[in-house]
C-alpha cells in the first residue's frame, strides 16, 4: 500500500503524518498521533464522540478522511484548555456534574465550544438542538445543558 503524506495543524502545532487513503481522520488522531481524547463510539457519524473543529466547523472525525486534513486547522479536546486553566466549559462540566462515565464528554465539550463561538447567548432549546448530534447515555442531558448555559453566561460576562 502507498501512504500519503499529509501536513496539517492540530491545536496550533504543525503536524505531519503518513496516512493510508482509507484511514479516517479519527483513525489518524487516535492510532497514529495518540490524540486519544477524541473517542470512537460508532464510526458512522451518529454519536458525536469524535467531534473536532476543522477550520471553524464542527465535524465528526470518523466521517472525514485523514488525507482531507491536508492544510486544515484542526482543534481537538486536547487543545481546549490553556496551559494555565481549564476552558470555562470544562470547569462548568465539572461544577455541574455534567459527566458520569465521561466517554462522550470530549465530544460534548468540542461541540459546545463550537456552539458558543457561533452563538454566545443560546437558549436552552438552541443548546439542545445543537447538541442533538452528540449522544450521552448516562446523564439524560439535564446537567450538560445547564453546564453549557452557565458557561455561556460566564463567558459573556468575561468578554463584556
Amino acid at each position, binding site marked *: 500500500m502507498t501512504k500519503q503524506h499529509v501536513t496539517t495543524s492540530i491545536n496550533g502545532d504543525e503536524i505531519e503524518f503518513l496516512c493510508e487513503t482509507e484511514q479516517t481522520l479519527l483513525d489518524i488522531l487516535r492510532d497514529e498521533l495518540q490524540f486519544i481524547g477524541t473517542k470512537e463510539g460508532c464510526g458512522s457519524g451518529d454519536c458525536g464522540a469524535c467531534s473536532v473543529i476543522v477550520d471553524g466547523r464542527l465535524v465528526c472525525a470518523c466521517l472525514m478522511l485523514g488525507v482531507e486534513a491536508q492544510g486544515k486547522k484542526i482543534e481537538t479536546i486536547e487543545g481546549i484548555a490553556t496551559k494555565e486553566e481549564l476552558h470555562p466549559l470544562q470547569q462548568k462540566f465539572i461544577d455541574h456534574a455534567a459527566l458520569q462515565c465521561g466517554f462522550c464528554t470530549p465530544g460534548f465539550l468540542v461541540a459546545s465550544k463550537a456552539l458558543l463561538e457561533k452563538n454566545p447567548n443560546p437558549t436552552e432549546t438552541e443548546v439542545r438542538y445543537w447538541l442533538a448530534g452528540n449522544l450521552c447515555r448516562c446523564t439524560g*442531558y439535564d446537567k450538560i445543558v445547564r453546564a453549557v448555559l452557565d458557561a455561556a453566561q460566564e463567558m459573556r460576562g468575561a468578554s463584556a
Partner: protein
Amino acid sequence: MSITEQESAEMKVVGTRISRPDGVDKVTGRARYGADLMLPGMLQGATLRSPHAHAKLISIDTSRAEALPGVKAVVTRDDFKDQPSEIVAAGELPVNYRDVVRNMMAREKVLYDGHPVAAVAATSMSVAKKALKLIQVEYEVLPHVINVVDAMKPGAPILDENLRTQGDESAPDTPTNISKRVQTGFGDVDAGFAAADIIVEREYDTEPVHQGYIEPQACVASYTEDGHAEIWVSTQGHFLIRSFTARLCGLDVSKLKVTPSEIGGGFGGKNNVYGEPIALALSRKAHRPVKMVMSRNEVFRATGPTSGANMKVKVGCTRDGKITAADAVLNYQAGAFPGSPVMQASMTAFACYALENVRVVGFDVVSNRPKVAAYRAPGAQVVAFGVESVMDEMAKKLNMDPVEFRLKNAAKEGVKASFGPTLGPVGLVECLEEIKSHPNYSVPLGPNQGRGVASGFWFNIGGETCVNMNLSEDGTVALMVGTPDIGGSRASMSMMAAEALGIDPKSVTVSVGDTNALGFNFLTAGSRTTFASGKATVEAAQKMILELRSRAAKIWDISVDAVVWEEGEARPASSNAGDFEPLTLAELAKKAPKTGGPIAGHAETNVQGAGPSYASQVADVEVDPETGQVKILRFTVAQDAGKAIHPSYVEGQYQGATAQGIGWALNEAYIYDENGRLENPNFLDYRVPVASDLPMIDSIIVEVPNPNHPYGVRGIGETSIIPVTAAIANAIESATGKRLLKLPMSPPEVLEAIEGNA
C-alpha cells in the same frame, strides 16, 4: 452502626457537592478508556461473525487468512477447550460455563446473527479485515425463531436439543426452548379474585433494548511465554473478567492480571466476557499484545440487549380500592442461551404493593437472538410496564387518583413483600407523597396532553468487597477500591473516607485497583458500589483510626482507650488521660516509622444489608394527533437514596435512568428481518434519546436511611428506570384515551391507536 438524625446533622462532607477527583482527566481527554492503551508491538484483533440466525457450523478453513502477510494469529472454536455445565453468578444474572464458551465462540452451531465464528490478529486493522474475508465457513442454515411466543410453541425450531424445562414437573422430556419455569408468591390468588369487585387483566409485549453505552467493548490482552498474562479492559467487573478468561483460556487465576480502564458506560452490559478470552488466545498464538475493539455494529448484534417479553397481568380490587389479588405470567427472552432476568422480574413485579394473595409464574425462553445481559434493574423494568399500566387502569375504574390508589396499597415497613421477606424501613410512601405535592402534579394540561404516574422497586445488593487504605508519609490518604468507577464513585468514596477520618476529601486519592492489588471484588452492578465499597471504606477507615489512636497512645505513653479520634486528630479522651497537644494525621504519619511502621486500614468482607430502593414518577406528555409522536413535556422523579453521599451524582443517576426509560418507551427496539438478521445495528436506526428529545428531569432525593450502612446509603443506580415506560403509557392514555399494550410506543403505533376503533 446506624445513622441517627444527630449524626446526620453533624456530617461535614457527606451530602456536599465536591468536584469529582477524576473530573479534570475526563474534561481534558486524558482519561484512558478500553481502546486508549497502545503497547509496543501491539496487533489489531478482529472477529468474523455469523451472518445467519441459526446454522450448523460444518467447517471453518482459515488457511488463506493465515497465509496473508501481516496476519499473526487466527483462532476458532478449536482453540478453546469445551466447558462442562456449571452455573456461576455473574453480576445480576447466573451464567453457565458451557454456554459462556459457546457464546464467546460458536462451536456446533451459530445461534444468532453476529455470533463469533473466528478471529484474527494482524499488524493493522485493514489487514485484519482483509483476513476475515479469506476465512471460509461452511454453514448448514437451519430454521430460526426470533419471537418469544413463537419459540414456546410446539414445533418451533429448537436451539439446543439437550434443553429441558427446569422447575416444571409437568414438562415433557422432549427438546424445548423453555429453559426454566419459576414461581413466586403466597396466599390464595383464586380466593383473592373471588373477593374482588373489579378485575383488570391485560396482555403486554415489549421488545429487547440495548444498554447503549457509548464506549464499545474494548480490551488489550498480552500473554507471555512463561504462562502469565495481562488484560486491560473496559468492564464493570475485572475480577469476573479474570475468572472467566482464566477458565476459558486454561490459566491459573493468579497468573492473569486484569486492569480496569476507565469505563465508558455499562448499565449491566459490561458484566460479561466477550472479546477478552479471544484476544488472549490470539496473543498466546502471536506472542504479541492484541487489541480487540468492537464496532458499534458488533455491539448491537452480539452484546447484551435485555429481554423482550410477553406477559399477562391480572389484578383484582374491592370497590373501595383495596387490592385483593395480583397474578402474572411472564415469558422472557433469554437470547441464544438460558439466563434471562425472569426471576428478578417475578420477585419485583408486585413489590410496590402490600398484598395478601400474589402469584407470578415466569418462563425463561431461548431464541435466535444475542444472549441477553443485565440492564439497569434487570427484569424489573420490563414487568413494570404491564403491572403499572394495569394499576393505572384500575385506579381509573375506581375513579381514584392514581397516587392515592398507590398510597392506599403501598408496601411499607412491616409489610410482607410480594417476594417473601418482611420489609424494613423503605421510602415508597415518601416518594408517592413527594410526587403528589410536587408542582408537576398540578400543572394544568392543554389539549392532547396527558399525565401518568408509576412506581418501581429494586433490591440493591452488597457482595464481596475488598479495599485498602494507606496513610502516606505526609498525612494524605491513598484509598484503593476494586469496583470500577462508572459514574463518580471515586468522589463518593473519597467523601466517605474523609467523613470517617475527619479530614478534607481532597486529602484522599481514590484509585481502582487491579486484580493483583486487592482480594476478589464483585462487579460494579446492582447499585452496590457506593453502598458496598463505601461500607468497606468506612470499615477500613475505622481500622486505621484504631491504629492511629494506638500510635498516639504509644507516643504519649497512655492507654489506647484514653485516646479519641476527633476532627482528624488524636486527642486525650479527657483531662484525666493527661495534658497532651493533639496529634494530627500528618504528625502521626511523619512519626510512623518510629512508632511501628506503615499505617493502613483495610477491609475484606461480603457486605450484607443492602437497602431496597423505591421510586415514583410523574410524566407529562403531548401527543401529536397528526403523526402519533409523543413529546415529553415534564418529568419528575422521586427515589429513595437512603442517604445521598454526593447529591449531584444521585440526581444524575435518576436523570440518566429516566432518559433510558424514555428511549425504551418511545423509540428503542431490536428489529429483525425475515432471515433473522438485525436490521438496525447502528445509532441512526436504533435511536436513543438525544438532547432535543428531552426536557429537564426534575429529581427529588428522598432519604429514608438504610440502617445497615454507616451513612444510610441504599444504592441509587437502577430504580428510576423501572417506572418510566408505564408512566409514559399512562400519560398517553390520559392524553388520548387509548391504552398502548406494546413497546415501543413509536409514532406509527400511537397513530394506529388514535385512529383505530379500539
